[in-house]
């Protein structure tokens, strides 16, 4: 029972740290988004709140908290209030199975060595399946938000988001299967461990087609440009969140940025070697399981994460939005057959080797 209590306390502490970092990460992403978009468009961007405008995202959040929470008269009240909770909750739950570094060994006061895993439940056997299942639940937040607002723009946005996410989930799942066949495991930790050593062990070199399919589909799953049809401003005012205001809108906003981080993390874990350096980490001369190595791995992970997020933002301010039929055409007629082909080719090659 004592062990159980300790485990519960450990998970609670890790969970709280993670949630704090997710929310702070959203703030960082908002800042980066505004600064990079300003750079691309030849503007200065936020520069009033704090040095270099660093406090701007916090000012944004305070503004959202202070705003009046407007509630449409004809909306379905319960669903309208519950939809942001689903979006936000699902966006955070996904982090439970994500590993951030190799386990760190800590010597306790009584001399016993305790292994601490970096993540809440990173060794889950079905980690990647859990994430896929949860993203498919995430559809409900957007759909319910669109439907319950009782507005044409919201409904269209919600329907679009549901259709888009269901379509691209397929090619995303099928693209991952190629990686799973090579690594032979559903566990995210095992997939990362499989890619350690030199950078040509990374899955992006073994599965380039799967990488491209996964990247495009995850852009669509994140509702990011060029696939942000659920919130296409010129056509839908604001999409599924048109009728939301105040912190309820803020929660959709946070969920979107949290999903963006999840997509980037998956891209890193599956294709870019996770927390591994581009060369064998034995060269650093650090013991496996030491705290120093853990810190180095976390730093590498964060660096890769920032690089991918920069890329995503860069794409958003460079590529124009797709038309709806083009989106469906691409999902069903290009990505899906390509993903199936990738699985077949991978199977044949694995069989020959």
């Amino acid at each position, binding site marked *: 029972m004592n062990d*159980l209590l300790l485990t519960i306390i450990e998970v609670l502490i890790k969970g709280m740290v993670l949630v704090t970092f997710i929310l702070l990460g959203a703030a960082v992403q908002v800042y980066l988004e505004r600064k990079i978009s300003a750079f691309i468009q030849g503007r200065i961007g936020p520069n009033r709140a704090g040095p270099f405008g660093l406090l701007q995202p916090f000012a944004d959040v305070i503004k959202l908290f202070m705003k009046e929470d407007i509630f449409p008269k004809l909306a379905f009240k319960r669903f309208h209030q519950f939809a942001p909770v689903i979006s936000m909750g699902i966006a955070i739950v996904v982090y439970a199975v994500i590993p951030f570094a190799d386990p760190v060994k800590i010597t306790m006061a009584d001399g016993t060595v305790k292994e601490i895993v970096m993540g809440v439940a990173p060794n889950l056997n079905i980690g990647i399946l859990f994430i896929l299942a949860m993203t*498919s639940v995430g559809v409900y937040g957007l759909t319910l938000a669109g439907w319950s607002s009782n507005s044409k723009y919201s409904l269209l946005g919600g329907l679009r988001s549901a259709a888009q996410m*269901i379509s691209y989930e397929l090619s995303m799942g099928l693209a991952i299967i190629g990686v799973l066949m090579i690594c032979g495991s559903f566990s995210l930790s095992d997939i990362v461990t499989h890619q350690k050593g030199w950078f040509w062990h990374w899955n992006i070199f073994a599965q380039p087609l799967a990488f491209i399919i996964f990247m495009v589909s995850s852009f669509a799953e994140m509702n990011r440009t060029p696939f942000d049809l659920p919130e296409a401003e010129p056509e839908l005012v604001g999409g599924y969140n048109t009728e939301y205001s105040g912190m309820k809108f803020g929660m959709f906003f946070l969920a979107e940025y949290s999903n963006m981080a999840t997509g980037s993390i998956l891209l890193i874990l599956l294709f870019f070697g996770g927390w591994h350096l581009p060369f064998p980490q034995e060269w650093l001369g650090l013991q496996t399981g030491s705290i120093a190595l853990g810190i180095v791995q976390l730093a590498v992970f964060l660096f890769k994460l920032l690089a991918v997020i920069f890329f995503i933002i860069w794409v958003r301010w460079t590529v124009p939005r797709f038309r709806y039929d083009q989106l469906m055409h691409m999902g069903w007629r290009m990505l899906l057959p390509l993903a199936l082909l990738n699985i077949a080719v991978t199977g044949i090659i694995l069989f020959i080797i």
Partner: protein
Amino acid sequence: MDLFEIIFYFFAAIVLVSALVVVLSKNIMYSAFSLLFTFFGVAGLFVLLNADFVGITQIMVYVGGILVLIIFGVMITTKVTGVDIKEGISGKLQYAGAGIITLLTAIFLSLMFINGKWITGSSTDVHATIHQIGTLLMTKYILAFEAAAILLLIAFIGAALIGRRKA
């Protein structure tokens, strides 16, 4: 009562209460939405029984696929086409029919529960189930697997045929 039982009754309560809401609610949207919690409760029970793969598949297939379809149907029929879905029971005959079917199902389930050969194992030896499931599907249950694949292919072709038909 140990922790295992507490968690079991927690999930069982979720399943039962949400299933009752599905049946008894007058608002069809509440019914459809309550089904979400039923599926999650069942998935929780599966995970509690060390069937992690079955639990997550339950969420992927039922919550991510089937329920989305149901909620879509409910949403679009009531709001876009303006047709009201009849809710509730409108006659004596339905009561009788529902009662008989419920009674028969209850008897069938009880018989299965009493006479079934249940495989019992200790709840402590947790190991990954995916590998075994994959091996069994490809060896012992290959016929069932292929039959399911053919069924899916037929459904796929049918969907493509309907989708391509010009209105």
